[in-house]
């Protein structure tokens, strides 16, 4: 049975679906007022609403005291495998980029895989390793913005940021070449917990090409990017590649 309610300038048809939506608080204010008015005028509608509310109460009562068994949280596999794949891919590209040849590539890949497999999976959010492997100026800027933003946000806390660059990324750290030379110097001076590291292999490749790289003050070298990344991961640092920084800044 559908009930027709005169609401002044029009007729509104109330049906069971409407009344269900009313008891569930799903009607817009105008239709809700119409139902309320209909309930005032028609005892049958009042009774229907009452029945529906009772059905709702039955459900709540029937399952009110349900208690689940206290079980430990299920074991789960963190999405580390995805990150691991990404890092391994970066390290592979890195190994190829330094010109170490197939042997170096295979060794680096194996080494990375071994180290990553041993990595416990705990990321310390306060220790961030930013990896830069190309010479795109906007990538330089993204890394510096990210580092500065992170250090500003966490001033006074025990945090550390390290920027590791290889391949074209070392240009960020070269005096007379980097478009952000002054900013790198300023950031190094301002934040003692920020460190820039240039990959030893990338610098050696430049020398092979007849270029003598001069690094900005306070930029460290003496290690390869592969070794550095693996070392930091084993120490629990959070690894970020430049191409996935933009969404987080």
């Amino acid at each position, binding site marked *: 049975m559908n009930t027709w309610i005169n609401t002044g300038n029009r007729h509104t048809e109330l*049906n069971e679906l409407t009344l269900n939506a009313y008891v569930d608080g799903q009607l817009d204010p105008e*239709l809700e007022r119409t139902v309320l008015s209909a309930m005032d005028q028609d005892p049958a509608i009042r009774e229907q609403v009452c029945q529906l509310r009772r059905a709702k109460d039955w459900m709540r009562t029937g399952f009110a005291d349900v208690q689940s068994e206290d079980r430990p949280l299920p074991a789960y*596999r963190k999405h580390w495998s995805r990150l691991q794949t990404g890092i391994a891919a970066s390290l592979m590209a890195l190994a190829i980029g330094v010109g170490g040849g197939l042997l170096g590539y295979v060794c680096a890949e194996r080494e990375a895989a071994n180290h990553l497999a041993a990595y416990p999976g705990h990321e310390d959010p306060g220790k961030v390793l930013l990896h830069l492997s190309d010479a795109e100026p906007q990538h330089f800027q993204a890394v510096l913005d990210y580092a500065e933003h992170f250090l500003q946000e966490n001033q006074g806390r025990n945090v550390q940021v390290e920027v590791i660059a290889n391949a074209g990324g070392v240009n960020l750290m070269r005096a007379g070449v980097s478009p952000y030379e002054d900013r790198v110097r300023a950031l190094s001076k301002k934040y003692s917990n920020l460190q820039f590291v240039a990959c030893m292999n990338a610098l050696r490749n430049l020398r092979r090409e007849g270029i003598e790289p001069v690094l900005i003050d306070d930029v460290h070298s003496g290690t390869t990017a592969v070794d550095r990344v693996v070392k930091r991961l084993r120490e629990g640092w959070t690894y*970020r590649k430049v191409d996935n920084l933009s969404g987080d800044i």
Partner: protein
Amino acid sequence: MSILTRVCTTASIRKNIASSRSRLFRVALAWCGDQMVADDLVQETMALALQKSHQLREKERLNAWLYSILNNCWKQHLRRYRPHENLDEQQPGEEPGPDYRVGQMEVVTRVRTAVAGLPVEQRRVLALVDLEGFAYCEVASILEIPIGTVMSRLYRARKALIKLLDNQTGEMPGAAIPLQRVK
């Protein structure tokens, strides 16, 4: 968002997942009517949620997201153990047995028995609306069905419940005409 904020958010989501067990269990029990099955469904849901928590970008959607996972786990369970059941066409029991027995039981048992007698698809909607207070549009999203279907299933579920549980006849009259203005 800083790394720190992001990691804190993930930790917060994990904590919320852990604290959702009882609510998930309540709905799972209403859906399947079996404590052990409900417990397994919830455990499976939580394992999947923890595993995929990094995919959840909007923390506000966590609750609905959890019930979507629960729904998928339940559907898989049904496919595995009751593959021939036609969920949509199943009708509440017309046999006098359960109908007669519910009158003899305590309210909680009566309600649970009556709910267990409803078609699976009606139980699904009823539990999400009445136990968890989800809006119709949220239920439609969780169960991946049109909002009109949510409303008609809810209407039929309550009508059947009233018929089973009310001392009076409780027959709810009225044809199902689509509602135009739902939030």
